[in-house]
């Protein structure tokens, strides 16, 4: 690769051709502020906060998109540049709903942080007409408040490029430009899959999940309710970030402690549901292979993916595993097996899940997700909502001791915890399926071919005389690639794992938001996944079928995987939807 040497604020930097000024400056130890820029998906040079002076250039140059050239001289923080950045912020504020005190993003807002950094003193300096904006709270999982939108279009890029969906875009022109759905449709009326990747990348409080915090607190306070909480594997890999802990910190113990202190009657783990999912899903896969069922079988844990499949690839809904997601399996068991065991009326049980996900909010309201005559799950909150609850309850999270989950539904294996990373479900299923098919114990449990943050991964395994071709995709644009290859006959897979969010649940739409200045230089997917793989590595139990709570559940209640009762409780059905016409 050709290398260019340039000078940034007098410091010499050598970087490969194609490097942007922004990246080169970072190499020189200089942060140039950004708002609209998101690595790989949104290099549009729109917000102009990253402008720098380049010797010889007519105007200022946007560092996020401006490639370095030999002998270039760049000045990133001259008085002129700094003054202009401040003006850009002042202009943005003139069309911004500055109700920061009550904003969900206050304290974590990228715009707010930059305004402080650049010494903006008067948000009304350019006060004038504001863009008439609407609030779209039609969807089950999120709210769009365009009065806080700064038109960086990161959400648009996440939706269109990461997910290949594009249900949002710029409407109108000029000052009246706003982000919304085509023809100003409500989000709920589009084929939005509820993944929440738009929220994850939003720099301000314009996009946020529909909160259930008050409802959950109310349930906890209700003496007549037995409130259970389950927490997804990926939550423990990211919750610490909301309390200033380094990215990639495992907070499993503190998470359990915090939930207990919040007053939940039982603190359980979605890992239990995940192990149960593997039992059912591995069984379903083996049945499909042995009985000529529809192949490839595709995982159904990710509700964003399921909805995507229903909208965009309805011809594949028969390929979806009929297994409910771990969240829903957990709920169904909590309100049946657990209720009976504890002698509690299922109507008095309130099930709450903490998820790295916004689509889970949609999932709990889906049809065929109420096995016992009551909804399997009552509330699903995001990792971010949990962090807000912990803060509101005055719990000093970082100082908490490590505690464990309650039994029996708090017991999970290493196979379950890796569900939170792309490839994890596949690996967990393989561990169980291979042992089931061969009847022998696996020597090596690590299926490393399906690990890692790549968007599409493939592997072929020889199992008990069968050749099994598997694929793993995360991020729906990657899912589309895999499905298209299956459709065209180019690939012949038997089993596919698909996660809606790139990198899997660790990078879910409900996880703590990281500023672009972090996202652009740290791979959140990889850092958070490390937590899960290390938990798996250190786990005593690493195969779902060895989870004693699962074994007991089958022995005493469900019978065998795929039994009639298991089907009633743990399996679901899908619908075929059309694009941009929800029903």
């Amino acid at each position, binding site marked *: 690769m050709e290398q260019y040497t340039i000078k940034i604020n007098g410091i010499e930097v050598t970087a490969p051709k194609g490097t942007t000024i922004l990246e080169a400056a970072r190499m020189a130890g200089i942060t140039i502020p950004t708002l609209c820029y998101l690595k790989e998906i949104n290099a549009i040079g729109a917000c102009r906060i990253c402008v720098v002076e380049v010797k010889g250039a007519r105007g*200022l140059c946007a560092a996020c998109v401006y490639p370095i050239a030999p002998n270039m001289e760049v000045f990133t923080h001259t008085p002129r540049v700094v003054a202009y950045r401040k003006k850009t912020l002042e202009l943005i504020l003139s069309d911004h709903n500055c109700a920061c005190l009550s904003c969900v993003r206050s304290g974590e807002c990228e715009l707010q942080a930059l305004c402080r950094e650049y010494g903006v003193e008067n948000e009304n300096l350019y006060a*004038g007409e504001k863009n008439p904006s609407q609030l779209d709270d039609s969807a089950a999982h999120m709210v769009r408040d365009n009065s806080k939108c700064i038109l960086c279009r990161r959400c648009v890029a996440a939706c269109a490029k990461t997910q290949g969906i594009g249900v949002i875009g*710029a409407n109108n022109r000029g*000052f009246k430009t706003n982000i919304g759905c085509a023809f100003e449709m409500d989000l709920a009326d589009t084929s939005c899959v509820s993944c929440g990747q738009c929220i994850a990348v939003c720099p301000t409080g314009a996009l946020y999940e529909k909160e259930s915090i008050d409802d959950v607190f109310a349930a906890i306070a209700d003496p007549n309710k037995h409130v259970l909480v389950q927490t997804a594997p990926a939550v423990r890999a990211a919750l610490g970030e909301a309390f200033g802990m380094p990215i990639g910190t495992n907070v499993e113990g503190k998470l359990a402690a915090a939930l207990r202190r919040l007053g939940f009657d039982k603190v359980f783990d979605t890992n239990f549901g995940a192990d149960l999912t593997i039992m059912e899903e591995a069984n379903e896969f083996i049945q499909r292979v042995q009985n000529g069922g529809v192949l490839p079988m595709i995982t159904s844990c990710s509700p964003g993916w399921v909805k995507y499949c229903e909208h965009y690839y309805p011809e594949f809904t028969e390929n979806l595993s009929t297994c409910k997601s771990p969240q829903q399996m957990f709920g169904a068991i909590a309100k049946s097996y657990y209720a009976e065991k504890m002698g509690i009326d299922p109507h008095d049980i309130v099930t709450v899940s903490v998820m790295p996900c916004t689509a889970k909010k949609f999932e709990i309201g889906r049809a065929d997700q109420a096995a016992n005559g009551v909804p399997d799950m009552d509330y699903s909150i995001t990792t971010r909502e949990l962090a807000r609850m912990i803060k509101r309850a005055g719990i000093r999270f970082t100082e908490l001791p490590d505690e464990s989950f309650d039994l029996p539904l708090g017991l999970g294996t290493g196979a379950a915890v890796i569900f939170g990373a792309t490839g994890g479900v596949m690996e967990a299923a393989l561990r169980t399926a291979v042992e089931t098919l061969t009847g022998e114990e696996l020597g090596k449990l690590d299926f490393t071919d399906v690990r890692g943050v790549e968007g599409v991964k493939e592997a072929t395994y020889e199992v008990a005389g069968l050749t099994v071709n598997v694929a793993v995709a995360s991020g729906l644009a990657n899912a589309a690639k895999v499905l298209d290859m299956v459709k065209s006959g180019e690939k012949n897979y038997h089993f596919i794992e698909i996660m809606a969010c790139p990198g899997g649940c660790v990078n879910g739409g409900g996880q703590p938001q990281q500023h672009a200045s972090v996202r652009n230089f740290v791979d959140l997917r990889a850092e958070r996944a490390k937590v899960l793989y290390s938990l798996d590595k250190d786990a005593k139990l690493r195969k779902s079928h060895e989870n004693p709570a699962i074994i007991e559940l089958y022995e005493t209640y469900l019978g065998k995987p795929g039994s009639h009762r298991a089907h009633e409780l743990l399996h679901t059905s899908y619908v075929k939807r059309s694009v941009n016409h929800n029903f």
Partner: protein
Amino acid sequence: MRNITIQELETIRERMAPHIRFRHEEMIGQMDENYRAHICVCGGTGCTSSGSEKLIARLEKELKANGLEDEVQIIKTGCFGLCALGPVMIVHPEGSFYSRVTEQMIPEIVKTHLVEGKPVTKYLYQETVTENGIIGYDQTNFYRKQNRVALRNCGRISPEHIDEYIGTDGYFALKKVLTEMKPEDVIQTLLDSGLRGRGGAGFPTGLKWKFARAYDNDQKYVCCNADEGDPGAFMDRSVLEGDPHAILEAMTIAGYTIGASQGYIYVRAEYPIAVQRLQIAIDQAHEYGLLGDNILGTGFKFDIGLRLGAGAFVCGEETALMTSIEGNRGEPRPRPPFPAEKGLFQKPSILNNVETYANIPQIILRGPAWFAGMGTEKSKGTKVFALGGKINNTGLVEVPMGTTLREVIEEIGGGIPNGKKFKAAQTGGPSGGCIPAQHFDVPIDYDNLIAIGSMMGSGGLIVMDEDNCMVDIAKFFLQFTVDESCGKCTPCRIGTKRLLEMLEKITQGKGTLEDLDKMEELCHYIKANALCGLGQTAPNPVLSTLHFFRDEYIAHVVDKRCPAGVCKDLLRFVVDPNKCIGCGLCMRNCPASAISRTDYVAPGHKLASVAIDADKCVKCGVCLGNCKFKAISKK
């Protein structure tokens, strides 16, 4: 359908050339072998909207009635330029220029002129009627100083007949390029000619092509910017309507030069006649194999598609235009990479505007020295301007670079109506600036206009007189940019809006001197920070008026007065009680019932005078127009 050969192309030229030459002034008294007279009727948008289609129908009827249909040919041409006097038609070989022609005049013109051979003097453009008889229209003030290169075929040929174009050496530049020149030769020719882009920024065309040629790629594109959007500008429309094949020929030459096989013309859907004629031209070029595979048997392949713009001004910006052709929302992209490297569909591309292309076949045929012989040191050739505003000869003119504003406005444009005083000329559209009287004698070229705070732009030239308020003018252009901003970058989306609000504040009499400084600061910020040319130049109308007409701003801000009497909020209509005879006409016609009678009777008058209640007055000006005694004035 088969490709014509070079030999056949030459045969068509030989057949058509005398026919076309018949329409030149010097051919007076000669005969076309087929027709003894040609009537060229302007079929441009201006004349069409003032009824030239009806004239043609009436002409056909009258010619038939007089048995002349085989002797006299009617040609629907492109624009003659003198739109103010439309509909226009010229009868050859005399070159009689009939202006403001109505259907009712046709029978007389046919009978007297075409049957009896005597031009109908009373219907002629009166400037061609002199004491010494009828002069050629090219001797009139409007045409005398013009030099029509880009517009050479406008008004001369039928744009809907490819043979007529071939008769003017059309497609012979292409033949020359394909058979005698290497791509490098074409580039050198353009460089030597000094041709710079007519779209506004004035980038050397040869250099642009050279860059695009240098990038290796199996697919490149040639684009034509026909998305003319400056308020009051219609140069490109006229070329497209009058000479569409020149654009196709030039684009094909560009394709050969940079190594592209596909071209796109991005043309506004609001130009239906241009679109229609372009489509006809493309179809005819296909028919002759002048587009498609193996052009003129040389093995070269090139095709052109039309893409219609939906009217967004920003789509005239090159990257926005390409984004729009790609099927996306028309928004600019950051540069670099420049289109020469990654343009349309991320492939090496060039984009030139219509007028630039229109010059190219001529440069190839007549040589770079000929072209470089016109104009100034750094701006060669001619430039087409659309004259508009407070000027007598509204229309299209093409003058050598270096012509002064005075020549264009006073001589060619016929000066300012009603004896009003010239105040400023606006060039460059919403990206340009206002040029005050003190620069009346500056030779117009790219660099001079930049030096005085304006720019060439695509050629809109709007004249303003003493009745124009310069703050209002700045507001007008800024309103345009605010409306047309794509909304992508912050400085343009919000900055221009805030700038406009400040201007509104000033025209409402609520501005302060501090606002002027704040405005100027914001202007410089937007220029330095906006993403694309639209935003970067949007403050120019404000900056140039602030520079040259600061006193008018100060009058608005300090004296709360609009010197030109335009800004309504600052206007007061007052009655001079000593001039008012109390007739009451104004009272009866006031839509706001703001006028009432006083008890003052001026000496010598019988009735009491009236007075205007400023609180009720809506400043419509009806009273002013009605008062026969000049008793009412604006202050």
